[in-house]
């Protein structure tokens, strides 16, 4: 009744091809973005901004990156953590080598480095696919992390091996290092996330996105109709790694303030794969929903016993957390294997008819 497309006439091809063809959707998205841009920073506590919203947004970027590779181009990857680490370490390296460089350019450069590394590790995808590919991407994960921990050049020979992120400014606002204001940091990350999400959304519905999807659905058939597997697979790897690299750099610069290998270990790779699957393969919205769900769920599990006045030891909490997390994963896959994004679109379908189901 309230959500409908009736009366929403398109008179140009341009209007028909818009990202959100239904006016109500368009307004909804604009409102959400404005709320997160203006209202949330005014109302939310520092804890909320610093420890929940910022990491969720950064993880969303990584999830979008992996979604491009796995959801759109169909190449399963377990090396996300390695590509994120590349972004983080290269951002640190570039930023300390050129202290005057604006951090936006640092991020882009770090992303490009990650993209190059992604291409290198994506080359096997031309020969192999499926789970074989997944295992070879593990090579990226282990090799890259080993490289960054073993070669002191990457951390400017820092003795601890875990350097702190240098303070950097954007338009006069400090956005990295521990002294920066959580609001500035949050807004910086938020704007980058929105831009990247918009770019990804458009990429997915452009020629290149259709190439990826053709390769995903059946690569031989795609090859026969004239799509080059080489370019489409490697662009998917490059762009995906670009996103992961930026996410890794932001994670180090705007969230944990240090450049450390443990933040990008194999568990991170799995976590991001979960986000993509729970959120929905091949959906940008799903990347956000999945990131929020996977990041917030353990926090919720930690806090929940307190609400009921239960005192539980820390070890028991971690054990129960693992069990509930695993159980929820399986439950979700059984109930809705296409992820939260599918639930969202089912909800919209229902709303279209509600409250008169005929």
């Amino acid at each position, binding site marked *: 009744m309230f959500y409908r497309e009736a009366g929403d006439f398109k008179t140009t091809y341009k209007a028909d091809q818009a990202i959100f063809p239904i006016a109500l959707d368009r307004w909804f998205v604009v409102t959400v973005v404005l709320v997160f841009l203006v209202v949330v920073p005014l109302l939310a506590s520092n804890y909320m901004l610093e420890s929940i919203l910022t990491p969720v947004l950064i993880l969303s970027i990584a999830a979008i990156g992996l979604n491009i590779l*796995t959801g759109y181009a169909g190449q*399963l990857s377990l090396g996300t953590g390695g590509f994120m680490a590349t972004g983080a370490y290269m951002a640190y390296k570039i930023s300390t080598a050129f202290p005057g460089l604006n951090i936006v350019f640092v991020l882009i450069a770090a992303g490009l480095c990650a993209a190059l590394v992604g291409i290198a590790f994506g080359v*096997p995808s031309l*020969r*192999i696919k*499926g*789970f*074989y590919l997944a*295992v*070879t991407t*593990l*090579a990226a994960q*282990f*090799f890259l992390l*080993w490289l960054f921990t*073993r*070669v002191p050049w990457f951390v400017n020979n820092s003795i601890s091996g875990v350097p702190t992120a240098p303070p950097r400014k954007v338009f006069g606002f400090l956005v990295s290092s521990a002294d920066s204001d959580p609001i500035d940091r949050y807004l910086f990350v938020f704007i980058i996330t929105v831009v990247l999400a918009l770019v990804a959304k458009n990429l997915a519905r452009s020629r290149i996105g259709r190439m990826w999807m053709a390769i995903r659905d*059946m690569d*031989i*058939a795609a090859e*026969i109709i004239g799509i080059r597997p080489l370019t489409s697979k490697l662009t998917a790897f490059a762009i995906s790694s670009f996103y992961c690299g930026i996410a890794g750099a932001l994670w180090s610069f705007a969230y944990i303030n240090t450049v450390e290998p443990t933040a990008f270990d*194999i568990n991170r790779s*799995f976590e991001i*794969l*979960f986000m993509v*699957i729970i959120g929905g*393969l091949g959906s940008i919205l799903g990347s956000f929903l999945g990131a929020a769900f996977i990041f917030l769920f353990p926090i919720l599990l930690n806090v929940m016993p307190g609400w009921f006045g239960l005192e539980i030891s820390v*070890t*028991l909490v*971690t*054990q*129960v*957390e*693992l*069990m*509930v*997390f*695993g*159980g*929820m*994963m*399986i439950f979700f*896959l*059984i109930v809705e*294997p296409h992820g939260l994004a599918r639930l969202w679109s089912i909800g919209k379908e229902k709303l279209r008819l509600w409250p008169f189901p005929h």
Partner: protein
Amino acid sequence: MDMLYNILIAPFLEIAKSPSFFAEVVIGGLMSGVMYSLVALGFVLIFKASGVFNFAQGVMVLFAALNFSGLLDAGLSIWLAFPLTVLIMVLLAWCIERLVLSKLVNQQDIILFMATIGIGYFLQGFGEFLWTGNVRKLDVGIPQDAWFFGDIMIQQSDVFAAVVAGILVIVLALFFQYTRIGRALRAVADDHQAAMTVGIPLRSIWLIVWSVAGFVALVAGIMWGSRVGVQFSLSVIALKALPVLILGGFTSVPGAIIGGLIIGVGEKVAEIYWGPLFGGAIEEWFAYILAMLFLFFRPQGLFGERIIERV
């Protein structure tokens, strides 16, 4: 030039200088290769019969070892604890089949794969919940002395592990080749639908496969556990079984064994002779890179079925 010399020539000179040390390294590698093979075997069994890439195999190893050592610590004798743990693993297989796999029939591979990761998380939490997360020593009376052949030292426990693994593989091979159930398993692995049409019950076959994989996990868990103690890192070691699988091919039992030996030896030799050049600890990634390079030349692995693609 120096670098090239260090990489290409110096290690071989070193090998030539002390062949007995090299032999020791190789034997050590073979033994850890046997361990990898044991874990990889569980993967292959399940992948062959159900097409599920069971990521939880590593955690199943940990879970089986935890149960076994927990029962031992509770005062049971080995001869009681072992069948009890086998029973637990069968029960686990039944639960997995009933609660997870049967609900996910006809889903994409990646969904099943994710579900096994979920199982892995659950089992890890559950195992530690039951038996606490402390490191346990596991002593089942495997001899710990060493034998000497000339200059070469061989750990008896390693030989024991190799013998057990060998027996296990032979038993499995006989089981697959000559029993009714084994034939049914091979039929299912070949073609699900054809197997169902001739009246092979798919679900009980899956139950059997997962039980056998659980049994293999138990054996692997006991072997690893008596070596390094029963602890969480067991399930991480099991990740190494993945490059082994790639090398051997996902669907081949002998492939899992040979792949495991190659990876075990390659990794040890590389670590000892080439590791210092790169600052050490290249064991962490060597297996993966080796597997990746290998795939360039033979995408289906050493013994995997030829990949035939149709539109």
